[in-house]
């Protein structure tokens, strides 16, 4: 039951953190950790947030991150180069932007997951979007 509910949310969140090449490994590691430490994970209010950090830590990318496994991907109504610009954001900004706008997490959920304040999350999101607009040639 836990895996069925948590896995898609965790996989989507970690995709923005570790990239398409490592996301399944990261999810697998995080869920294995959850099994191993179930007594600790089970009572958590936001276990996915905690496991996000576990998966991120275990699968720290060392190469340039990419969001799509099969490229190039052309999406209607999406500026060309947006996925690359997203992937190139600084880690904290990418995590905040991805979780907020790619996963619909609330700022408080993100803050708890990343262990920062909600105002810091707002700052990261704002700066990340501004940088993306700059990269896309749009007014900041």
């Amino acid at each position: 039951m836990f895996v069925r509910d948590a896995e898609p949310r965790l996989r989507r969140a970690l995709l923005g953190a570790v990239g398409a090449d490592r996301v399944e490994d990261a999810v697998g590691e995080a869920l294995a950790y959850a099994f191993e430490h179930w007594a600790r994970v089970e009572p958590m209010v936001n276990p996915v947030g905690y496991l996000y950090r576990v998966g991120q830590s275990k699968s720290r990318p060392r190469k340039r991150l990419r969001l799509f496994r099969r490229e190039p991907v052309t999406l209607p109504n999406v500026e060309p180069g947006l996925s690359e610009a997203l992937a190139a954001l600084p880690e904290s900004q990418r995590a905040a932007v991805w979780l907020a706008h790619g996963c619909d997490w609330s700022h408080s959920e993100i803050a708890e997951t990343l262990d920062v304040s909600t105002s810091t999350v707002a700052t990261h999101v704002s700066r990340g979007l501004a940088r993306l607009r700059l990269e896309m040639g749009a007014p900041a």
Partner: protein
Amino acid sequence: VTLSLEEQIRQVADAAFEQTTAVRPDESDTKPKVARSRTRGRWIVLVAASVLAIALVGALSVIGGTANSPISPVDSPTPSPTSGATVTEPPPTTPPLPVPPDFSEEFSALGMLAEIPLAAYRPDVGGRVEGTDFATISEISGVARPANANVAAERDWFDVLFDPEAVALTTPFLLYPDTEKLQDYEQELGYGFLDIDRFAAASTFVSTDPIDPIDVVALRREIELLADEAGDDQIVDIGSGPDGQRNLDDRTPLRPIGQPLRLGIDEQRSMISISRSTPIVSAWLNPESPTLFDVPDLAAAAAALDLDEELYSAEIETIDRDIASYELDLPESEFLIVEEFSTVGLGWSGFGDNQRTTIVYVFADEEAASASVQPIESLYALDAEVHNPNGIQLDEVDVVGDAFLVDEVTAFGRTVVVSGHANIDRRLSSIRDLFLASPTLIAHR
């Protein structure tokens, strides 16, 4: 494109997510639990380890003082990845050095050397270079690092980090991970120990006082705020006054006697160097400056340590010939290594039951290294007696095998590489204790 940027991000996430595959792990697919029980007294252990390491330098100085020349910053066999220094012919038996990965991305002993400017090293005295990759320790232990101090996850992380049976590591000089000061560091510097992915540090010992040590840290967060504070020279001053000036009215946990610190800022690589010396920080910032990668004996030790691709912590020590901290009263026949060596390297990799320790000796040439394999094997024999002439406290360690088990002794170029692991229930760093308790392990005639 008519969608807002936020809506486009959502589209990208939807499409990328569709390319991923659901994960349904088997519940039996778990890893063994890590023993995290021995956390009490971890600071004592660290302090003791530090003291022992300092004494090690002294021991080397006494034992090796007869013939060894101190390492000189002579020509590098290959160009430093950061210096582009002029090269001359390498020693004839030195294997070509690989160019290490950038230290901001990945840990290696050679990369560690490449971050330390030669200006931070005194070849006439010798010293110690060390580094640790905390990101890798997090990966192999499966314990996430907390984002900042005083959060619940901190305890788990530090339990791993300072479980002496699980990992062995070195710690920065200036950013020593004192749990009582983590928040103070963050407040003063804008980042803290928990933000460090990996570090390289160097200090030169005169007696037991380090001279102008330097910490170089790769951070996992942006340093744009610090970068904004830096002047044209890319240096941020913490505290006021000239280099080294004590100011007891401006003491902080990071600057206990008020000496100003200089922070060199490399925003592009999210790296910072910290020193009390402006010239040292300036040298680190200058990509043309020579580094310890250019010191052949250090580089030879590092290259041998890097043979273990999972290396996460390393230290390389050289001989201070002028220090005479204590005398050894052993017959020369006890010193099995006849050939001279100048440098000893230590490295750790793996975790828990898979932990590995590597010891490297650097000799003058390949012939000397080859000739030393058998004597070194004898030194590390399971039943080799621990003389302990200095009365080092080592509970229930009468022979080497009580603390350290050798898997293999091999020659690599002009180095001899001892691969092994700590005995069960021993601290992984107990090899340091052995060096002191049985100084013939790091002595030559």
